[in-house]
């Protein structure tokens, strides 16, 4: 089984949003509104039911008298975000219908004909990717262009990216490529380039790896994403103890009351 992956190299992103457009067009995703966010050039806010690729515009705090091209001036970074297709996916574990499945490309696919809109995946994704569509009632997310991959094609976003900021390939290859690229960037003086690939957390790595400049937190990429199933043992233990006390308490209460009557 091959593991398909995205490597999103933010140092190459020009913020053109062609990925957003291509994704919407290929997958027939509805409009996500025409809102002016006031947050740099980002007007789609975050990933959601109708935004499966989302270009982030991380704008530094401007300094008076320093233009964008001045060395040491305020940085302006772009990064195209997408569903991480986690190795251990919170949404996949949480889904009670089996609508979310692991595909032959090791991606996480949501089958819309099975999804019942229970929205449990929405609160199980540590990256805030899934969302319940307000009109449809079901949850939606990036399909990793499962249909295109089945036909041997590159996902729409990667195909249209004009700068190869979005690269598609085999996960292990892309991890090597990311390492090389960051080393190369550092040699060229881009000291703050880092790889975002949380392999040592409970999600055990993502199938969407990112190269970003600066702290990934500025891009809402959490350093410690947690899969909710991690806490199930605590939860069920507490539930079992509570149930035990409930039963014992009720038995004692009724036996005591019965004894009083006699």
């Amino acid at each position, binding site marked *: 089984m091959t593991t398909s992956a995205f490597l999103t190299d933010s140092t190459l992103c020009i913020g053109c949003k062609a990925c957003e457009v291509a994704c919407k067009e290929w997958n027939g995703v509805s409009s996500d509104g025409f809102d002016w966010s006031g947050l740099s050039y980002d007007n789609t806010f975050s990933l959601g039911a109708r935004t499966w690729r989302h270009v982030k515009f991380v704008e530094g705090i401007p300094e008076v008298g320093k233009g964008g091209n001045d060395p040491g001036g305020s940085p302006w970074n772009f990064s195209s975000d997408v569903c991480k297709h986690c190795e251990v996916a919170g949404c996949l574990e949480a889904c009670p219908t089996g609508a979310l499945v692991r595909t032959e490309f090791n991606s996480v696919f949501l089958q819309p004909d099975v999804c019942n809109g229970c929205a449990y995946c929405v*609160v199980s994704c540590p990256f805030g990717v899934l969302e319940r569509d307000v009109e449809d009632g079901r949850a939606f997310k990036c399909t990793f262009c499962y249909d295109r991959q089945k036909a041997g094609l590159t996902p729409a976003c990667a195909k249209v990216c004009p700068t190869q900021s979005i690269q598609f390939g085999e996960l292990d290859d892309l991890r090597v490529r990311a390492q090389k690229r960051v080393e190369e960037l550092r040699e060229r003086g881009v000291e703050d380039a880092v790889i975002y690939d949380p392999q040592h957390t409970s999600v055990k790595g993502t199938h969407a790896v990112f190269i970003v400049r600066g702290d990934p937190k500025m891009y809402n990429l959490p350093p410690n994403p947690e899969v909710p199933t991690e806490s199930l043992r605590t939860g069920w233990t507490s539930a079992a103890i509570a149930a035990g006390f409930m039963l014992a308490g009720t038995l004692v209460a009724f036996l005591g*009351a019965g004894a009083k009557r006699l």
Partner: protein
Amino acid sequence: MSELSRVQPEVVPELEKEQRLSLIQCEALQFVPASASSFPVATTKTGYYELPMVKEPSWSWEVPLYFFIGGAAGSAGVIGAVARLTGDRSGLVSHARKIAFAGAVLSPALLISDLGRPARFLAMLRVFKPQSPMSVGVWVLMAFSGGATLSNAGEWLEDRSPYSRLTGLMQNLGDIASLLFGLPLVTYTGVLIGATVIPAWKRNMALLPAHFAASGMAACVGLLELMGHENPALQALGVGSALVETGMGASIELNPDPAMKPLKHGPSGWLTRLGGALSGPVPLVLRACSFFASRKRASMLRKYAAVSSVVGSAITRVAWVHAGHISARESRPT
């Protein structure tokens, strides 16, 4: 005087025109973000423009109501079965079964209403996934509903059918199922919201199932008391659950974890406190007073405690869901 000022007509202030300009300003002001003075920025501390890290729960009002009803019904299953087992003949068993049955009917109805249409509920019955509390819960609810229906049907048929052994068996099986699945029905909702990425819920995973168990018990005891039962066992259970709820409230108040903020501050915090007070200290004091009051007064005080517990239990579930929304809105990458 220059040439310019002579050609310009002098403006006479007109109240109507000035008011119109103020009106335009008022209309334009609604497009100014609330934090216009400190426009959000993308930093390590604020995350990406202070946008939430995780998504808000998108359940409708039916879900917290289901948590409440399911909790009360599950407890009724347990109380009814235990009361029958210990030989209660006061009609409490029958009333407890009816509460369980009402919950068994209302719960799937509420969930279907949240999902939108009935066929969507069935999608959950095509698989069983032990790693998904939602899947475990829906099967527990189905088994409980079956049990509650069976014992009620057995009871109804008892006087109408000649097959007393069959109706007896139906009641036995139904009560056993109500007991076995009532216990997880009350507690699983705590696991359900605890096993998420919502900080205020996730951090309370150990507390939530026990909290919801006590809350469900208190609601069921209250309902039975309001139906006219004055069994001392109910009083004991009422005192017990009010004690546990008082402890839960104190532990929420004293927990210094920043993730607890939505449970202590703002409207969601006050809602949590209101629910906590009505489930814990208020019924506890009322029940304590009832021990020293005259028979008539004691019965009155117990009724007040019952109302307080039922309302408190419902508010508690709404408050937790509401706090989850606030917690998600305030979540940042960690």
